[in-house]
Each structure stands twice: as structure tokens, then as C-alpha cells.
């Protein structure tokens, strides 16, 4: 099953590589990984998407907790949560395509953030599924470049992950 693990990490040099190392050394997979500083300069927040049986996820959580730089973590998929990913897509947009691309972007609530005579760059936010849906709706020929941020997320309700 797919799990989204959200981690508060000491903002120390090498902390990220400890997490990455753990996954490769123990043979766990990482589907996506995002990391950025938080409002507290001493902490980074890392969101990690992984797959595994319950036993594997239990080990992943325990092993992560064992890392000295990990302050706190939560498996978002254990409760209700909001998940988002940002995608920037550069597509061909000339002639008749231009209007079609514009329509498609609005259907997916995308925003056009850069324009040339021949291309649009579209910004899209949503769950991974929605972003996949947009890519699938495009004809491959029209697709010039895709960049995705990786998944980030937050738990629903009043509970918050903080130190």
C-alpha cells in the first residue's frame, strides 16, 4: 500500500542523506521525496511517499525514528489528510492547438505561467492522480517537458505535527 510519511528533521548537514541512505541500505523504495525548511529554522520538513506491506511500513517508521536527526514523524495515510503536488508542463501551443491547450488547462484548473508563440507553460496543483490525468489527456506529441515537485501533505483536523 502507498504511504505518505511526513518527517520533522534536524536542519543539519547530512540529515537528508541519512534518510535516503536508510532507504537504499535496507532496500525500501522511495516514490517521491520533498524537503524544505520550516518556519523554525532548526527544522526541515520532509515528505516521503513509499510502498510496502504493513510489516515493511512498520519497519520503515521504526528505522526512521531511530535516526538521531529525526525529531518526529507521522504516517499521514493512517488518518485523513490533504495531499498536493505541483507540476509544471511545457506544451506545444500553436495554431488550433493554442485554444485547445488553454481549454484543457482550465478544465484541470491549471494556470498558464509562461507563453511563447509556440508554447505554453502550465502550472497545475493537485493529487498525483489528477496530475497523471492531465498528462494522459494531452497528446504525447504535444508534451515538451514535465517537472513535478513530488508529493507533500498535511493531516486534516486540529492535530498538527510540530515539536
Amino acid at each position, binding site marked *: 500500500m502507498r504511504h505518505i510519511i511526513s518527517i520533522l528533521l*534536524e536542519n543539519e*548537514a*547530512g540529515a537528508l*542523506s*541519512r534518510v535516503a*541512505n536508510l532507504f537504499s*541500505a535496507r532496500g525500501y523504495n522511495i516514490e517521491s521525496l520533498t524537503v524544505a525548511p520550516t518556519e523554525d529554522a532548526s527544522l526541515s520538513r520532509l515528505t516521503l511517499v513509499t510502498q510496502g506491506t504493513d*510489516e515493511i511500513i*512498520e*519497519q520503515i517508521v*521504526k*528505522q526512521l*525514528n*531511530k535516526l*538521531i*536527526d*529525526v*525529531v518526529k514523524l507521522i504516517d499521514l495515510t493512517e488518518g485523513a489528510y490533504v495531499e498536493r503536488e505541483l507540476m509544471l508542463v511545457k506544451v506545444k501551443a500553436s495554431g488550433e492547438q493554442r485554444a485547445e491547450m488553454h481549454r484543457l488547462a482550465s478544465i484541470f484548473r491549471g494556470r498558464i505561467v509562461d507563453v511563447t508563440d509556440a508554447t505554453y507553460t502550465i502550472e497545475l496543483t493537485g493529487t498525483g492522480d489528477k496530475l497523471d490525468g492531465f498528462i494522459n489527456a494531452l497528446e504525447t506529441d504535444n508534451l515538451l517537458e514535465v517537472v513535478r515537485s513530488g508529493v507533500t501533505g498535511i493531516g486534516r483536523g486540529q492535530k498538527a505535527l510540530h*515539536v
Partner: protein
Amino acid sequence: MELTGAEIIVRCLKEEGVEYVFGYPGGAVLHIYDALHVQQDIKHILVRHEQGAAHAADGYARASGRTGVVLVTSGPGVTNAVTGIATAYMDSIPMVVLSGQVPTKLIGNDAFQEVDSVGITRPCVKHNFLVKDVTNLAETIKKAFFIATTGRPGPVLIDIPKDVTAAKTEFVYPKKIKMRSYNPTVKGHAGQIRKAVDLLLSAQRPILYTGGGVILSEGSKELVELTRLLGYPITNTLMGLGAYPATDPQFVGMLGMHGTYEANMAMHHCDVLVAIGARFDDRVTGDLKKFCPEARIIHVDIDPSSISKNVRVDIPIVGSVPQVLSAMIKVLKEEKLEPNRKALSAWWRQIDEWRAIESLKYQHTDKIIKPQLVIEKLYEVTRGQAIITSDVGQHQMWAAQYYHFDRPRQWINSGGLGTMGFGLPAAMGAKFAFPDQDVVCVTGEGSIQMMLQELSTIKQYQTPVKIVNLNNRYLGMVRQWQEFFYQKRYSMSYMDALPDFVKLAEAYGHVGMLIDRPNDIEGALHEAFAMKDRTVFMDFITDPEENVYPMIPAGGGQNEMLLAGRDEMVSTHEEGMILV
């Protein structure tokens, strides 16, 4: 007063009560060596190879329970130490490694003797640090000792660039350290402990299975009390030997691949298993699908990630062994709870039947030295009191099987990583911790040659150890597997062109002895141990084709042991062939 980084390091080590530092100098650590030179409190032991430094510090830590300290230079100093660090990591040994690094400005420039020490050691340390600012140095060292010694212990490396050792700052050593991200649980959950006691008492066929965690946490006293109170059989892992006295009738021997028949059969047939400070290692469990099929399992361990990693357990208890066991004892005593004595005596009758098989019996002969006999004689001559270290292979198993360890920290070996070369420097480290005790390195002609140079360190510091070399001219364990599983194709397992170990010992200033007749074993041992202040290298020429029995072949279950002279071992199944 402001001190240099190098002076701060020395002061910190004093504050931590460090007696010995095992190390080797080099460019990046010259300031530190200079600071060590002008003081007397901390004694530096100059090894002959950095791997030896790490093993010696490790042996010192295992024997004494204190933290082993290592000091090496950048680049090859660190890479040479890596095997020693990994050895300590796999067996959870408290160790602090100080490594020199090129100056901060040169980091990343491929400077002379530069290596990414923090990166290279990351997978084999509990934690590591790169100190880039002298003002963080003292606190980092405090943290390193705190992390290395608490929770599940392990090695911590501090990488210190040369400019940091020269820079000056005010020295303040923090009295206490608190880390928001590191706070190991030591006290077991009361509800879980209660549940565990109930399950324990409901058992018809119980067994305690305990490991190195009992020794690391100084939990032996509580373990003995609980075991005697219950009257249950107990088995120890290779790492756990000595935590419960081997000569006690409740002890059924070591378990696992080369454990006793009774220990493995009792494990296989038990209905309640209490695992304490043990981690269900593959050498212990054999085939997981066949492991303890009827058992409900209680697992006490300080490391949550050890629990339910290989085997799902019914009652996990995270905590320090002595604390959890004393809580259990308290419940048992206060409520005057009693196990099922009737079921227990039937269970003991069954165990005694397994015991009667005498799985450690071997063929005696007066023609050739049987390696097992050497260990038995060693046990007699040292009255079971010596500290024994070993290398890795057949001799290690024989030492574990035939020397009966009655106290914790008496048996020192590389169980997790299985590092050949560990035994000699570890023996030296143990001798530093206990100069008045006999320390013996049981080894083989393969292993000893991996760290032979430390004979020189042993000479320099007058730390006499006794070396029992079981010389069968084979890499015995490799040969044994090739005999069983590769139709006797002895690929690269024969040791040709061996040195004359007697002369070699003498060349290093020690005493060498060659023993090739069974009748001479005892006399030679007496003679060697009478030389209190000399290192004696005893080269025993043993039966080249002796095998370690009993044995669970790779991929087998604990009830599928092969016994010496009774079972023909021909092959294992396909799945077993890919296991190590």
C-alpha cells in the same frame, strides 16, 4: 581561558573519564597528538594498523563496559578503521571514534588524504558528526558519548578538520545533554509487563532466549534471578553467552546454527518464548517459516526496530533489560505467582531426553589433536576464569561450545559482522581493561594473519595475552561448507605457505610453542599460563578435516539439526544454497 580545539578534545576525554585512546597519528591529527603529548591522564596506545585500533577499543569496551575511544587520521586512517567500526556497530558496542579531516577550506577539493569520512561511515555508525566550528566541539563530543552509551549502544564518529583543532575558544563542557530528537525508552510499559508475566506463567513449555543486550545493559543479575525464580530452561545466543552461567543446570547451551540439540529442540517445541535483548538473527532462527511454530512470543528490547523485524511477536516490551526484568520479578514476588510446576517438570524431562543425545560429543583420538579438546583443556587449565576472545570461523564456534562462560563480558567475539582479525587486538583491549586477568585469543591460522601486526603493539605495552591457534591448514568453516554443499571442491580454502608461527612469535619478542600431539596439550597450556608476563603463541596442529557439529544446514529449521557421526550431510535444498 581559551583553549585550542586539540586541547579541548583532550579535556573532553578527561571529563568523560577516558583512560585509553587507541590510535595512529597522521597529518590531520598532529595538533591532537601534540595535546596528548603534554599530559599524562589519558594514555594513548599506538597500534600498528587503524583497524587494530578500532578492534582494541572494541575489546576494551566489551570487557569493561566502558566506552572504547579511537583516534585516527583522515583518509586512509578512517578507511582502515571502517571494518572495526562496522564490527562494533553490528554488535552494538559503545565507541567514540575521533577522526582527523583536511582543513575546512579544503573539504571537497580532493585534498591529500581527504575522504568523505562522514559519508563512508554513515551506514555503520549509530551517528556521526562533522565539526566545522571549534565553538561546537565540546558539545559535540558530549553528544557523541551520550549517543554511544545510551539506548542501544553503538559507535559514533566525530570528524574534525585540522583547522578546527588549531582554532581557539573558551572551554565549557556541558554537564548534561538533552536532545529533542533522541530520547531512548528505558522503562518498560507496566501493562505490557503484566501481560508478559501472565503469559509466562500460563506456559507449559517455556524457554528464555537471551542475547547480547543482556550483557550490554548489565542485566545479568536480574536475568539470573528471574530464570531461577521461574525454573525455566534458558538458552543464550553467541553474543549472549555468559549472561547466564553456562554451568547452571537450567542452561541448555547456545542455540542457533551450531547450538546444542537441546537448545534448538526446546526452541522449536516451546509454547512460550521470552526473547530478551536478542534480535532473531538468521544464525539463530534458521528458516523463519519453520521457526518456533507453536510459540507465543514476548520480546524485551531497548531498540523498537528490533521488535517484530524478522519474527512477529505477541507481547513487545521496549525498555532496558534490567529495568524490565526487575519489574517482572517484582510482580512475581509481590503477588506470589507460581508457574505451572507440573507441566514444567514434564517439559524438563523432555529436555533431558534431548540433552542425553550429547550433541557436542566428538571422536577422541590420541593420534591427532582434536580442536574441541584444546578448548576443553583450555577451560580446565584456566578454571573457566579467563577472558576469551575469538576470531571468526570454526575455532569461534568451538570456543563458544566448549568453554563454559559463567559470567558476562568473559566472551568477546565478532558475532554480527563476523570479522576475521578481530580476536588479537580485542584481546589486547581486554587486557588493558583487566591487566590482572588471563586473556586468551582463540584463533585460527587464517584469522590471525589478518591482524598479526598487533603482536608488536602487545609487546610495546606489555599487555601479555595467550594465543591459542587452532591450526588446521584450512579456512575451516569455508572448507566445511565446501565439503557439505559443494561436493568437496575446496576452492581457495587451503592455507599453503604458512609462516613458522613459533619463529614469528619470537620475532615479535614473544614466546612461541608448537603442539602437535594430544597428550601435550595440557602441559603446554600450563606452561604458557605460568608465564604471566609473556605473550605466548600456542600453535596447535589440529585435525584438518574436523567439522563443527551439531549444525542446522542453511535453510533448515531448528528441529533439523545434523549430529556428528550420526547424520550424513550431503546437500541442502536450492533455497538453502543461496543463504550464507
